[in-house]
């Protein structure tokens, strides 16, 4: 709770410190990725369905907003933000049948199907000229915010969305829904056997997850004010979401956020330092491999394990001091708490 309060306070006050534009811009992107990774975590982390198609929904959100506001002039500039829930609904409604079909398969094949969905959306974005403008791209209305505080409205919208997604994650972890999702990850057949409504639960998680992702896509499109198919539907966005969640820790509340902070700022630094896209790809891939090979469970679960181990050792030491015969604490008590996929 305290951690959450401090986090909110820091997020709200940050733009009031008179930060440079480049830094605010970086923060907006960090928030976008933190929100998307948190939403990916709902289905990829808790239910264990590694979707590689989320970037398709990012693009769907971006193009939905672009279509609604085609050739319009905005009065206040806040209209697109008000429309975000609708964009989320569109994403979730498209995600529903996709989930119903693709979730007939398990981990590997599911990843294949979702990544093919991503390429379907990309092909559509290139080919449906009348809707998307094809490879020439399409323009959104230019946000009429003053240049001095241009990033600030986007920043606060993204803060709100991140807090919403984290709140949703928190509620999920505390509810029967979260337990159902984790049981699906552990063993779907057994979960079905004990009465978990597996199909309903996982399809719901997927729809909510992609709904949030498409909302972020809409904010991104408005922020960039001109979108092209290859950037709106980019496999690298999917990979960033997955990687951030893995780095921070799957199935945890703070993991995806931590992963986004580290990777997105690192990424911006790398592109700035290395300039060329090619070298950046290599470095990115190497970081990716190192994370998976050295920290397969993510930063937070690893730290948690270390702390728990140390605490347990101290306890057994104390116990040994009192009862020199041997440890009084049964060693398997902690295995119960890991069942929850790493509680917050």
């Amino acid at each position, binding site marked *: 709770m305290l951690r959450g309060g401090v986090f909110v306070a820091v997020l709200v006050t940050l733009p009031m410190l008179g930060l440079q534009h480049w830094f605010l811009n970086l923060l907006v992107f960090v928030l976008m990725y933190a929100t998307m990774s948190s939403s990916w975590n709902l289905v990829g982390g808790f239910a264990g369905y590694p979707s590689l198609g989320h970037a398709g929904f990012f693009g769907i959100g971006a193009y939905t907003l672009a279509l609604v506001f085609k050739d319009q002039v905005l009065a206040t500039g806040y209209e697109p933000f008000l429309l975000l829930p609708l964009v989320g609904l569109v994403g979730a409604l498209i995600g529903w049948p996709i989930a119903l079909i693709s979730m007939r398969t398990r*981990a*590997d094949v599911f*990843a*294949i*199907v979702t990544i*093919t969905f991503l390429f379907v959306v990309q*092909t559509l974005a*290139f080919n449906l000229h009348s809707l998307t403008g094809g490879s020439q791209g399409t323009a959104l209305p230019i946000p009429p915010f003053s240049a001095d505080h241009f990033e600030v409205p986007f920043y606060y919208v993204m803060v709100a969305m991140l807090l919403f997604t984290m709140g949703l994650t928190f509620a999920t972890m505390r509810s029967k829904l979260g337990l159902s999702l984790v049981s699906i990850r552990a063993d779907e057949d057994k979960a079905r056997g004990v009465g978990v409504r597996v199909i309903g639960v996982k399809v719901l998680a997927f729809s909510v997850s992609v709904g949030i992702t498409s909302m972020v896509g809409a904010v991104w499109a408005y922020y960039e004010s001109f979108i092209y198919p290859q950037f709106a539907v980019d496999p690298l966005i999917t990979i960033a979401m997955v*990687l951030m969640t893995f780095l921070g820790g799957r199935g945890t509340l703070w993991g995806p956020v931590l992963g986004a902070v580290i990777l997105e700022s690192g990424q911006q630094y790398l592109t700035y330092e290395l300039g060329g896209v090619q070298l950046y790809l290599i470095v990115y891939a190497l970081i990716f491999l190192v994370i998976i090979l050295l920290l397969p469970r993510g930063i937070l679960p690893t730290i948690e394990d270390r702390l728990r181990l140390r605490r347990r050792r101290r306890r057994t030491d104390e116990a040994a001091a009192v009862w020199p015969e041997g440890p009084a604490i049964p060693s398997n008590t902690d295995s119960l708490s890991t069942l929850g996929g790493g509680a917050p």
Partner: protein
Amino acid sequence: MHALIQGVILGILTGGVYALMASGQTLIFGIMKVVNLAQGAMVIMAAYLAYQLFTTFGVDPFLAIPITTILMFGLGVGVELLFLRPLRREDKSELSLLVTFAVALLIEGALSLTWGTTYRSINAGYANSSWTVGSYQITLVRLWAFVLSLVALGLLFWLLNRTRFGRAVRATVQNPESARLLGVDAQWVSALGFGLGAATAAAAGSVYGLLYPFTPGSHYDLISRLLSIVVLGGLGSVGGAVIAGVIVSTSSAIVAATVSPAWSEMTFFVVLILVLLIRPRGLFGSVTRGAI
């Protein structure tokens, strides 16, 4: 009607190449339960190697295949030993997807660093010559590519069905535990199997380079097509991958000839979705626990 038949001819000829690429991918899945997302990148890499051998040494892309095959085989074994072997067994299938995607990005980055991101193509002297049979055009390159794919597939089948190594591979595909009990060294089979899968990319790369212009980013197009083919054929079934490769490539060529080339790409996905709706395990797939 003319366009339709022309499309079918083109599709079958191109289908051989896809069959070759997909057979490597499905073989890797069969042995290790790993979906190799780097298969497309390996094909493109082999295409660049063939391109370089052709432009600097004048080696014909078809004759370059033995050289690139050895290189790609080494690369495949290296990837398995370095990146896939250390993964823990319980979440191997999930993590291996990410690892192979990272390898694909690594290859893409290395290719763009070496050759830049502009389109390249291998302009062999015979690139544009063709035969006319009846009123139908048969490009010579495509015909040779088809023949070559058949030869390579024949070699692969011989290796799998007639050698000791092939028997070990098939045993591992059918039941890894029993194979291990009977004395098959699973780690050795995995490394060589991944190498073999990568080696099929070598032959496919030469042919791909002759048929189409390519950039380091081309592997995204390739991998999505390959995945549709592999799922249609049934994951792990080499024969299924061959038939699916021809089916998908033919239907896509028909769409290109009758509707529009821009939509031919969609055929792959429509086929995939239909397969998932009607028969999720693919044409010749067995029900693998954990996959379907």
